[in-house]
């Protein structure tokens, strides 16, 4: 048999049911891939023994016909999800010894459906970053790298790299400003950030509570639908979770898209748009049109303000969310003869540079005398950005945009590191979606001239993940993207 780790989740499920191979064999195959690909640095913590125990249980379940929806599927978990009795670090020194006594709702949904956890995936520290370079555990290497080591994108860089390199069948990610979609695009994977409130945030280390949302990164659209199906759902432990039934997402795969109205935001078609990006965007429009979709020009006039708006709101919430890392109840503790010394030494040593920068930006925009000028202003801008989308969706069902203005760049890139804003600008097509709380998927569309993957983004109305899967599966079929 050819490499079983290259199968998609839906193929693997069929093979497991068919007893082509066992969950234990499959798990060992992934563990062996992980062993061979340590240089990619995709995992922070591996839990092979735990995975093999789970695999044994899955094999028993298949044997007795008790197999659940994801029985025996080996997954990687972004190390931002708290996993019971498995170290959870958020890629930060301040949590590098933290072992949660509880399980996040999303991971517990996956476990209940029979998934196997191979380990905890690398990310930008506290999910703050777009290249995975802010991780305390070092950067992840993009599996598409040839001569130069490239970033996998971020913050879910470990997730995207692990899926692309077949170090897991699928992975969880989280997305606050593009953290699922951008690394998926950089690594040639498919990832979806669902509607805010679709997946419970309980047990996910918080970055910016009003923007954070969990979602899957996988090899194809159908796999994303299968994983999201398991991850999503109402949770009474998260007061922002929505009590709306989760539809059968897989049913949308391959559904006819004729008549579906696809919006193209005119403001995104700027002069300095990368040639490759523009080409594939055009191609996508044509492919969808050929299948009978109706293309509409729409306007998102405040879109250019989404980034500065995001860089007020997300740091503000983060500055408060990260106040709990004080060295008292868990995590790293610095020296200090007084309480304030202890706090300052703990946090100054425990947090990395980008995290500290964002905490300070957030503290400033909330502080007395600046709240109205920055925080309140940004909240109002958020309303305008949200209204733009709601207006646009009066004329269309989905909006199609590129996922990122660029392909994966080298680790340690001088331009990106010279000014934090340069890095922030990579999220230009993704952040507005988080501000509006909408679902959006990125799928690989083709290779740029430099041989690296590019992604297209489909944005839907609230809770219209199904429609996104419908159009994305059509586009995927026509784009013929070749995975590693």
């Amino acid at each position: 048999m050819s490499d079983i780790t290259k199968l998609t989740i839906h193929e693997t499920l069929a093979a497991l049911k068919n007893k082509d191979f066992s969950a234990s064999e499959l798990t060992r195959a992934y563990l062996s891939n992980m062993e061979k690909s340590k240089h990619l640095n995709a995992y922070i913590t591996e839990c092979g023994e735990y995975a093999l125990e789970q695999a044994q249980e899955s094999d028993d379940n298949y044997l007795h016909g008790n197999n659940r929806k994801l029985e025996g599927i080996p997954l990687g978990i972004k190390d931002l999800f708290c996993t019971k009795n498995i170290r959870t670090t958020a890629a930060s020194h301040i949590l590098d010894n933290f072992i949660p006594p509880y399980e996040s709702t999303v991971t517990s949904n996956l476990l209940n459906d029979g998934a196997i956890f191979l380990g905890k995936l690398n990310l930008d520290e506290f999910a703050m970053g777009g290249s995975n370079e802010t991780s305390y555990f070092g950067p992840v290497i993009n599996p598409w790298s040839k001569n130069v080591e490239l970033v996998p994108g971020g913050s879910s860089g470990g997730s995207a790299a692990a899926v692309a390199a077949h170090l897991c069948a699928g992975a969880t990610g989280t997305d606050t400003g593009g953290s699922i979609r951008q690394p998926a695009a950089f690594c040639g994977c498919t990832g979806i950030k669902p509607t805010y409130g679709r997946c419970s945030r309980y047990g996910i280390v918080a970055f910016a509570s009003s923007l954070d949302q969990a979602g899957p990164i996988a090899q194809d659209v159908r796999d994303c639908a299968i994983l999201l199906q398991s991850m999503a759902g109402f949770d009474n432990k998260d007061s922002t979770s929505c009590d709306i039934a989760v539809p059968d997402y897989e049913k949308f795969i391959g559904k006819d898209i004729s008549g579906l109205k696809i919006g193209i935001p005119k403001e995104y078609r700027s002069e300095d748009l990368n040639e490759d990006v523009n080409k594939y965007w055009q191609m996508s429009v044509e492919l969808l049109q050929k299948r009978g979709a109706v293309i509409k020009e729409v306007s998102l006039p405040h879109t250019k303000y989404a980034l500065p708006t995001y860089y007020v709101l997300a740091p503000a919430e983060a500055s408060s969310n990260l106040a709990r890392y004080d060295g008292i109840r868990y995590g790293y503790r610095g020296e200090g003869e007084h309480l304030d010394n202890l706090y300052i030494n703990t946090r100054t040593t425990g947090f990395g540079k980008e995290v500290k920068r964002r905490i300070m930006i957030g503290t400033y925009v909330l502080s007395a005398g600046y709240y109205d000028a920055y925080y309140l202003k940004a909240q109002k801008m958020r309303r305008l950005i949200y209204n733009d989308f709601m207006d646009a969706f009066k004329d269309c069902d989905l909006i199609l945009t590129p996922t990122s203005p660029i392909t994966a760049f080298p680790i340690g890139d001088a331009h990106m590191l010279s000014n934090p804003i340069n890095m922030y600008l990579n999220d230009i097509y993704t952040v507005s979606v988080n501000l509006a709380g909408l679902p959006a998927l990125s799928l690989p569309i083709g290779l740029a001239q430099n041989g690296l993957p590019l992604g297209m983004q489909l944005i839907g109305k609230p809770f219209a993940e199904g429609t996104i899967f419908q159009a994305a599966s059509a586009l995927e079929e026509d784009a013929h993207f070749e995975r590693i």
Partner: protein
Amino acid sequence: MENIIETEKAKWEIVVGLEIHCQIISKSKIFSGASTEFGDDPNVNVSFVDAGMPGMLPTLNKECVRQAVKTGLGLNAKINTYSEFSRKNYFYADMPTGYQITQFKYPIVGEGEVVIDLADGKSKKIGIERMHIEQDAGKSIHDLSPNKTYIDLNRAGVGLMEIVTKPDFRSPEEAGAFLRKLRSILRYLGTCDGNMDEGSMRCDVNVSVRPYGSDELRTRCEMKNVNSVKFVMQAIENEAKRQIEVYENNGNVIQETRQFDPSTGQTKVMRKKEFAHDYRYFPEPDLPALVLSEQYIEEIRRDLVELPDAKKQRFINTMGLTPYDAMVICENKDVADFFEKASHNHDAKKVANWMMSDFFAMLNKKKLSIDESPVSAENLGNLVELISKDVISGKIAKEVFEIMAETGDNPEKIVEEKGLKQVTDTKAIEDIIDRVIADNPDNVEAYKKGKTNLLGWFVGQTIKLSQGKANPSIVNQLIRKKLDN
């Protein structure tokens, strides 16, 4: 009442506002399912949410909302159908998340008012600015180790109501009367036990002074966590004196947080921080807005217990109590309930008199609360009934009451067993009177010559010889008849 502080130089007026934190009575915490039980081992009643563990989220307790609405109605306040939670950011060892979930811009309860009763019999309205709900912090324990502070999170996350008054108090007495009234209302409602010494009700006091007759508001100083009514009054008194002294020596009062020292009764400035607090309030992103329906509020209003002011008025109007007696009896709901039970079908005024005198004195002496009273409400009512029906005299009743306080027996049984029934048999009484007349010819003579005030003496002698059992009015009647013949 005029409240003037007069010095050699000028007349001054005190201006005080209070902020009172009241622990909400509920089984579980405001944002988690951990118990609110007090006094357990450290860190037992703590959930991952209360400990501020990564990824933990708050969920709002229904009962805490209901208790807050009840309290708001009890303060005659506006209930806001829309309210929001905010985060108040500050670092402290017993604040696990580094922020307190509270309400800032949109509190659940708006303006209201409370009537306080003053010593001179007058009453005064005190304005309520707002009331919001929030979570309590844990406890820092400083005295178990010489070089460490210990943190117990059992209290972290217990629901609090913070009541903010308008700066309407003009004397320590008014503040004291308000706190007693507030405690009474909270206990009536069952929303907070009001025990200041246990910390379930904590008071921050804002004090300023101004020249008498002016209506300016000068710089105020805040004293946090003053933990008894007496200390609040002392703190106001002494802080006002301090401020007056500052002004009269051409100084300026600085806005600061001061600490009240119960051992000296004085206030002193707390250690100054390098940078002032900046709480960076912003909307709590983990909790959507709290929206209440008018119907929900109306249902709570409909089921509200009768509050002390209404009860007091009813006792005055329909049961004939004096305003003072009614006020004392209504301060504590258990007392008022006892009174109502005791006076059921009996003379309420007499029951009140008994409670205000012998009954309270007995409880005080025995150091018992009213629900531990050996004399039940029914038995006190029966005792009054025996007096009303002339079965026993007031004097015998006191004796019976003493026995009731010891044995808990009902008064009928005591009267029966001890043979304490009043003698109403005229023949028996006449015999005693005849003996008194025969033994005291001088007084009979004097009476007949016009010294009629000796009548009381004859009545007394007769009752004494009857060992208190002769009915005084019958005695009186018969003596008159005999002497006037």
